């Protein structure tokens, strides 16, 4: 009976993450932003283990894609390193605060559920209002940014030339990325939904380089934050193994489909699912704290 129950949950988790893995790249989001809220809303695991698995999924997917992006010069380590100095610290802080919230308060997981729902609504608004700029105009480069020489370039086959760019607004971006790191650690998300617009719209990095550089940053943030979850026993192999497998296979299928599929409908569907998950998370949280 126990083995059957286990097999049932392994299968559910595998297919749950497989479907998310397929849909997420077509919808233009990372898997974690769907996995964490949906799992909190509908699966029986505690939020600690869901966040641990979410971070591990963000880590494996960014580790799998970053080497190629770095080799091609698309992911800009020159920009990532000074930002990661701050965002790693805030992601560790976020993880500690997140685990403290759920482990130190009797209804901590319900409060967490409400915060997650609110965050999802915020993400929904960001996705709805922000418009990616393929080649943004150059942003002001302050003296601080000038010291780091935040510039990059890659050979763009569609233009048959090298695209060079300078990133600016470093101080504002650093503030944004400290918040992004904190949220990533606290909620167990990769947080590409936040870092891509900051690279693109605040720093003026072309969208292609923004997406890939964001992946490299997620690698560092999620790895540092995951140590907090591992040390507190919030990474359970029983949950992580089928989830990582399902997400990895699904993401590979999704990445192939994303090239062919018309993504506007799927993006709309993903956003609708996010809004629905937000409503369920908030409802579940409010019920949990006894207000309903």
């Amino acid at each position, binding site marked *: 009976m*126990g*083995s059957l*129950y*286990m097999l049932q*949950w*392994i299968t559910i988790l595998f297919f749950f993450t497989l479907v998310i893995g397929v849909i997420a790249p077509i919808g233009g989001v990372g898997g974690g932003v769907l996995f964490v809220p949906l799992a909190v809303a509908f699966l*029986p*695991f*505690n939020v*600690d*283990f869901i966040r641990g698995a979410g971070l*591990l999924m963000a*880590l*494996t997917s960014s*580790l*799998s894609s*970053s*080497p*190629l992006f*770095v*080799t091609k*010069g698309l992911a*800009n*380590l*020159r920009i990532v*390193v*000074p930002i990661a*100095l701050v965002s*790693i*610290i805030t992601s560790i802080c976020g993880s500690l605060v997140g685990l403290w919230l*759920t*482990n130190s308060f009797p209804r901590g997981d319900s409060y967490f559920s409400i915060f997650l729902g609110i965050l999802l609504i915020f993400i929904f608004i960001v996705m709805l209002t922000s418009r990616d700029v393929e080649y943004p105009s150059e942003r002001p480069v302050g003296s601080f940014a000038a*010291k*780091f*020489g935040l*510039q*990059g370039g890659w050979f763009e086959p569609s233009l048959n030339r090298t695209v060079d760019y300078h990133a600016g607004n470093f101080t504002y971006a650093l503030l944004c990325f400290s918040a992004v790191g904190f949220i990533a650690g606290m909620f167990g998300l990769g947080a590409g939904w936040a870092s891509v617009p900051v690279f693109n719209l605040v720093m003026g990095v072309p969208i292609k380089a923004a997406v890939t550089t964001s992946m490299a940053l997620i*690698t*560092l943030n999620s*790895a*540092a*934050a*995951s*140590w*907090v979850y*591992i*040390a*507190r*026993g*919030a*990474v*359970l*192999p*029983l*949950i*992580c*193994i*089928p989830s*990582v*497998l399902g997400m990895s296979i699904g993401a590979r299928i999704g990445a192939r489909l994303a090239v062919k599929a018309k993504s506007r409908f799927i993006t709309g569907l993903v956003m609708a699912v996010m809004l629905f998950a937000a409503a369920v998370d908030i409802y579940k949280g409010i019920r949990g704290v006894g207000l309903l």
Partner: protein
Amino acid sequence: MGRDEMNHASINQTFARIMRILTWAGLILLVLFGVLYLSGIYATYDTALIMQHWDKPASQFWLEVGGEEAHGYGWFLSFLPSMDSLAMTGIMLLALTPLITLLFVVWKMKGLYLILLVVLIVEFLFSVLWPLL
């Protein structure tokens, strides 16, 4: 400070190669021992007990399943070579991959970015080692 100080092709190549190798090694460990663990071969913790308590916060969960709260890495490293512990070493390797990759490229750096990378490595080491302090 020249642009090639950080974006030098050989640094990028080393970074990508080390990261790719370690990621594959971590994933192979995770999948191989994970599948054996899920098949019911030699696990440290009773899976029925895990499923009974996985709705509880991590601290409470470990009190019920392991007899004490988890602090540090002893909750799986002490039980090697059980399959769940070996699967966890795959996860550890994945989480260590960025740090090891940075260690491979730091000696190629010069000037300001050398200092930045050393600080980044110290931060990473802190995130790994603080539970043991």
